[in-house]
C-alpha cells in the first residue's frame, strides 16, 4: 500500500515536471509579462496521482485473481477469440457478410438526399484507403516486408491516368488496368534492389523510394505539372450518360465498392493458397523458408508487385474521383497512415485491416469538432494498442484443413 502510494506520488511529480512549460507558463507577448498558472499544475498532479493509483489497484486485483485461480487448480482453458469463432462458423459468418453487403449497396441511398452527397464522398475516400490498406496488407501483413513508401505506388497510378488522359486522351477504363500494371512495374523496380535487405534497412530504402517519387512529381514540371498538379481530369464515364454531381459521386462509390470486393476476393484466395503460405513462411522465418525450397526472390517480388498493383489501380480511381491531383496527396504521412491501418487491424487480417482503415479515415471526418486533439488521440490510441493488443484488432486466424482422404476412408469403413 505504502509502495504504491510512493509510486503514484513519483509518477504525479514526474508528470507535473513534464507538463510545467506547457501548462503553467504562459507568455503574454502584448504586455511582455509571464503568467504562472500554478493552479493548473495542481490539477495535473492530482489527476496523475488518482489515475496511477487506480491503475495499480487494477493490476493488483488481476494478480490476486490469477493467484486464486492457480490455487484452485483448475485447468486453464483458452477461449478462442470472438473473431476466430465467427471465422469457424460458416453459417453465421455468411449471414453477417450478406448483411454487410446489403448495407454497403444501400449506403448511398440511405445517406444522400437531393444534392447532399457529402457522406457519399467521405465514404469514397475511406474506401480508397480500404483498398490501399488491403494492398499493403499483402506486402507487410502477409509477406512481412516493411514498406514505408507505399503511397508512391498510389501516386504512380493516379499520375498514369492523369498524364495518359491529358496527353493522349486515354479514357478511364483503359487507364484503370494500365495504372495497376504501372504500380506493379514500380513495385518490381523497388523490389529488385532490396531483395537482400531486412528490417531497418528495408524501412530506410522504402522510405527513400517514397520521398524520391514525391520529389520527382514536384520538380519535373514539364511532365507532371510540378507542385501545381494536374486539373480537369475527367470522371469515370458510364456509357456516355450525362451524370449530375450527386450521380457522379454515387457512381464513384459503386466503382470503388466493386474494387474493394475484388481486392478482398483476390487477397483471400491468395492468402489460402500455395503463394500465400509461402509469403507467410517468409514473414515467419526467412532462412527456414528458403531451406524448405521456397524461392525467396520470386516470393518477395510477387509480394511487392501485387501489393503495388492495388495501389496503382485505386490511384486511377482517386484521380478520376477528385478530378485534380498534386503531389501533396502523396506524402509520407499517408504512407504512415496506411501502415498504421495494417498494424492496427492486425497483420495479415483482411477484416481487421478493413475495420482499421474505415475507423482511421471516418472518425476524423465525423469528429471534426475535436480536430485539434486528433493527433493527440491518435498517438494515445496507438500507444494503448501496442500495450494491450500488439497483435492488432483481429489477430492471425487459424485456418483449419480437413483431412479429406482420412474422412473418406472412415466412411468406407462404416459401409
Amino acid at each position, binding site marked *: 500500500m505504502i509502495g504504491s502510494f510512493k509510486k503514484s506520488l513519483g509518477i504525479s511529480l514526474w508528470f507535473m515536471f513534464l507538463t510545467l512549460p506547457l501548462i503553467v507558463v504562459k507568455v503574454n507577448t502584448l504586455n511582455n509579462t509571464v503568467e504562472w498558472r500554478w493552479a493548473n499544475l495542481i490539477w495535473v498532479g492530482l489527476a496523475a496521482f488518482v489515475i496511477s493509483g487506480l491503475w495499480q489497484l487494477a493490476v493488483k486485483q488481476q494478480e490476486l485473481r490469477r493467484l486464486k485461480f492457480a490455487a484452485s487448480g483448475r485447468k486453464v482453458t483458452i477461449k478462442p477469440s470472438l473473431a476466430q469463432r465467427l471465422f469457424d462458423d460458416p453459417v453465421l459468418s455468411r449471414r453477417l457478410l450478406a448483411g454487410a453487403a446489403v448495407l454497403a449497396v444501400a449506403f448511398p441511398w440511405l445517406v444522400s438526399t437531393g444534392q447532399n452527397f457529402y457522406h457519399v464522398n467521405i465514404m469514397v475516400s475511406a474506401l480508397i484507403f480500404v483498398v490501399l490498406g488491403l494492398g499493403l496488407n499483402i506486402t507487410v501483413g502477409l509477406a512481412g516486408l516493411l514498406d514505408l513508401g507505399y503511397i508512391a505506388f498510389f501516386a504512380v497510378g493516379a499520375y498514369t491516368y492523369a498524364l495518359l488522359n491529358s496527353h493522349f486522351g486515354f479514357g478511364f477504363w483503359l487507364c484503370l488496368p494500365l495504372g495497376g500494371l504501372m504500380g506493379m512495374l514500380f513495385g518490381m523496380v523497388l523490389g529488385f534492389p532490396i531483395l537482400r535487405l531486412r528490417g531497418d534497412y528495408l524501412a530506410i530504402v522504402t522510405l527513400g523510394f517514397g520521398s524520391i517519387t514525391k520529389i520527382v512529381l514536384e520538380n519535373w514540371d514539364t511532365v507532371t505539372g510540378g507542385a501545381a498538379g494536374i486539373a480537369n481530369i475527367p470522371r469515370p464515364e458510364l456509357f456516355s450518360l450525362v451524370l449530375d454531381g450527386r450521380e457522379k459521386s454515387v457512381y464513384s462509390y459503386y466503382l470503388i465498392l466493386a474494387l474493394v470486393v475484388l481486392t478482398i476476393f*483476390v487477397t483471400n*484466395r*491468395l492468402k489460402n*493458397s*500455395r*503463394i*500465400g*503460405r*509461402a509469403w*507467410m*513462411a517468409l514473414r*515467419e*522465418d526467412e*532462412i*527456414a*523458408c*528458403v*531451406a*524448405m*525450397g*521456397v*524461392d*525467396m526472390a520470386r516470393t518477395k517480388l*510477387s509480394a511487392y508487385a*501485387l501489393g503495388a498493383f492495388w495501389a496503382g489501380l485505386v490511384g486511377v480511381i482517386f484521380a478520376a474521383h477528385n478530378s485534380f491531383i498534386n503531389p501533396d496527396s502523396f506524402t509520407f504521412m499517408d504512407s504512415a497512415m496506411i501502415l498504421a491501418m495494417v498494424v492496427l487491424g492486425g497483420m495479415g487480417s483482411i477484416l481487421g485491416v478493413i475495420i482499421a482503415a474505415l475507423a482511421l479515415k471516418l472518425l476524423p471526418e465525423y469528429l471534426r469538432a475535436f480536430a485539434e486533439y486528433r493527433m493527440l488521440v491518435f498517438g494515445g490510441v496507438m500507444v494503448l494498442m501496442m500495450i494491450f493488443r500488439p497483435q492488432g484488432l483481429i489477430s*492471425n486466424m*487459424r*485456418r*483449419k*484443413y*480437413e*483431412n*479429406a*482422404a*482420412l474422412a473418406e476412408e472412415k466412411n468406407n469403413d462404416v459401409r
Partner: protein
Amino acid sequence: MTSGSRDKLLEVRGLTMDFGGLRAVDQVNLDIHAGEIVALIGPNGAGKTTFFNCVTGIYTPSSGDVLIHPPAGKSQRINGMKPNRITTLGMARTFQNIRLFPAMTVLENVMIGRHCRTSTNIFGAIWRGEAARREERSTVERSYRLLEKVGLDGLANEFSRNLSYGAQRRLEIARALATDPFLLLLDEPAAGMNPQETHELEALISRIRGEEKVAILLIEHDMKLVMNISDRIYVMEYGKEIATGTPQEIKKNPQVIEAYLGEEAHA
C-alpha cells in the same frame, strides 16, 4: 547395416570454409550412400553445423566440391547454389535451434515443404480451377500422412508455437520430408529431448529410412542414439575430420576418445 545398394548420393571433397581468418571447416571429405544413416559427431565448435550450412547452401564454401548424385536425375556440383535450389534437387534439413513458422498451424508448416513440389502460380491461385484445387487437396492429404508418421496428426490445426519442444523437433522432420528428399540432414534432432522422447526419435529415424527411402546424415551429441542407429560415423575436431568408421571402430579409436568421447566410454 546398410540396406542394399552402395550407390553414392552425396560426395564431399576437400570442403573448406573460412570466416575471415578463421577456418571453421578444413578439408573435410564425406560420402553418403543410398539407405545409409551417417552421423557427424565432435565437440561443440568443431564445425559440424558450418559443414551442414555449406552443404545445404546457406553458406558458399571457400573451396572444395559438394557433388550430389540423385537416384533420379543427373549428378551435379552444388557449391554456391541457393538453398531452395538444393532443397528442390532433393536434400532437406532441420535446424539445431528449431526454425518453424510459429504463427502458422502445424499442418501449414508441413504444407510449406510441398511448395517446391507443387506449381500453382498467382493466377492459378486466384482462379482456383480444377488443377489448383486438386493440387491443394493432394498437398493437404500428403501433409496429413506425414504428420501421422511423426505422430502429430492430432495437433494438425494447432499453431506450431504451442507445441512442446520434442513435438516441434518432430514437426521439423515432417516438414523436411514433405520436400521429397533423397537425403535428410538432421542437425541435433535429440537436443532438449528427455530419454523417452529420444528413444521414440530413434525409432522414428529408423522407420523413416525404411519407409521414405531416404538416406540420413545427422549431427548429434547423444552417443547412445548415435551408436545405436548409425551405419557409419564421421568425427570432427577444430574443423578437421579426425576419424571415420563404424560405431564399433569409433568407440575404440584412441584419438576420438581423447578429443570427444572421454575416458568413461573407454572404460
